């Protein structure tokens, strides 16, 4: 296995139990919310889409922070270069973001199936088809990537330049997440939509800003000294 694949697989192994816990909590939370809503009213939205769609992005943002504060020195201490760590982290991040973006529409579909067991779906519930699922994936993925990169760039700024430099770099660090949040949205009826520009343009802008954030991350860490503590 190449060093970067070792890093990627090491990160997946590390996060496997946390991932299981996180998604189990999401499933449980969405299920309870769905049952309660169904008992008291006719849900006009997908609890899963609202909760998991947002939480998964925030969780990846936190993972981005952890990549710098915990895992960088862990892997360098085990004989890996910063370059291999960043490449492995990028593989891990891409796969994790794709997995999370996939789980959102899949969970939505499962939720819809469970709701339909109790009778006809409420008229206003945002029902999902395979095509809608693909669209949801397409709208979710840029946000997942953007939040991961934002977390990583923000943490790298503090790690490399301390509090002062880190605060200054927060502005470019927050751009990927801000752009993704600004351009992509899911309304209360689970209708996915873009703001300001068509989907293709929104996707392009978001991916470019996220890629620039990833480049900043690489520049921040490529020669960074390995500190004793997180920052």
């Amino acid at each position, binding site marked *: 296995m190449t060093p970067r694949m070792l890093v990627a697989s090491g990160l997946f192994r590390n996060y496997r139990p946390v991932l299981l816990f996180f998604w189990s909590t999401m499933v449980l939370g969405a299920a309870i919310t769905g049952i309660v809503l169904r008992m008291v009213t006719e849900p006009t939205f997908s609890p899963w889409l609202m909760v998991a769609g947002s939480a998964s992005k925030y969780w990846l943002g936190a993972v981005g922070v952890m990549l710098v504060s915990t895992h960088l020195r862990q892997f360098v201490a085990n004989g890996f270069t910063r370059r291999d760590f960043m490449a492995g982290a990028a593989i891990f991040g891409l796969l994790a973001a794709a997995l999370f973006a996939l789980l959102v529409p899949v969970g939505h579909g499962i939720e819809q199936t469970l709701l339909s067991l109790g009778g006809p779906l409420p008229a206003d519930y945002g029902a999902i088809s395979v095509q809608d699922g693909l669209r949801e994936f397409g709208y979710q993925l840029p946000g997942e990537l953007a939040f991961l990169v934002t977390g990583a760039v923000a943490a790298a700024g503090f790690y490399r330049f301390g509090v002062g430099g880190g605060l200054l770099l927060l502005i470019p660090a927050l751009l990927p997440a801000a752009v993704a949040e600004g351009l992509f949205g899911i309304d209360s009826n689970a209708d996915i939509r873009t703001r300001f520009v068509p989907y293709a343009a929104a996707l392009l802008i978001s991916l470019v800003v996220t890629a620039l954030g990833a480049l900043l991350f690489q520049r921040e860490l490529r020669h960074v000294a390995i500190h004793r*503590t997180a920052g």
Partner: protein
Amino acid sequence: MISLRDLTVSYGDTIAVDGLTLDLAPGKIYGLLGRNGSGKTSLLSVLAAYRKASGGTVAIGGVDPFENAALMRDTVFIRDSLDVSEQDRICRVLELAGRLRPCWDAGYADRLVDVFELHRRKRVSALSRGQRSSLGVILGLAARAPLTILDEAYLGMDAAARKAFYRELLADYLAHPRTIILSTHLIEEVADLLEQVIVIDHGRLVVHEDTDTFRARGVAVTGPAGAVEAFVAGRTVLSQQSLGGVREATLYGALDDADAARARAAGLTLAPVGVQDLFIHLTSGADDGTRRTEALR
């Protein structure tokens, strides 16, 4: 061969390593000695590619280790603060090292866990200072890296654990020879392990030589004040102290047989100076406020 040429490490205006030039042959145990803030950790950080040098060059086998995948894989650097996740259990830390380190000896690591009486299920955050050091020693030794760097790896260890550490270090080095650099303040305890000593002070190299040669450089001359004064005239005196009419002077520089005979004929007693005492004399301030190391340069 590890070659440092005019190596400088600075943090803003603070110079931690100041134009240090040094060659280290492979397959030896080196003791890196220096007072707090002398630049030991900065020097080791550059060797382990944890930090880029501010100036000068560092080469291992002719190649700069910074971001060199092969050299970094062949180096293990254990700092007093462990570079592991605080939330991980010991077994998980060792498992990770086993997957990532090419020469990791899992059986040996397991044995060391027992030797240091660590509980595999305990989280790193719950370990005492000494237990953390023990875990660091396990990570350092079981990695079997061709360049093993242990920076004050004994901190907080009790006497029994330190003895076990020295025993295991020597046994494993004999079974698997490699370059080991030990940075330590417990000089007398490890002096017998060290093949060569490197003394740095204020980021500069003071001494680099075989431990036996270094040890032989320190001589304590004791006797009547006048006789001692006459004998030490023109020699490098590291320290002097008097009690009544008796004076003891610590000299830097080995005495030849003729000098030794002359001293005895003058009623003087000659005694070796321990490595730690010699180090203290070399790196402590002189009466005139200057470092004695300045006089040796």
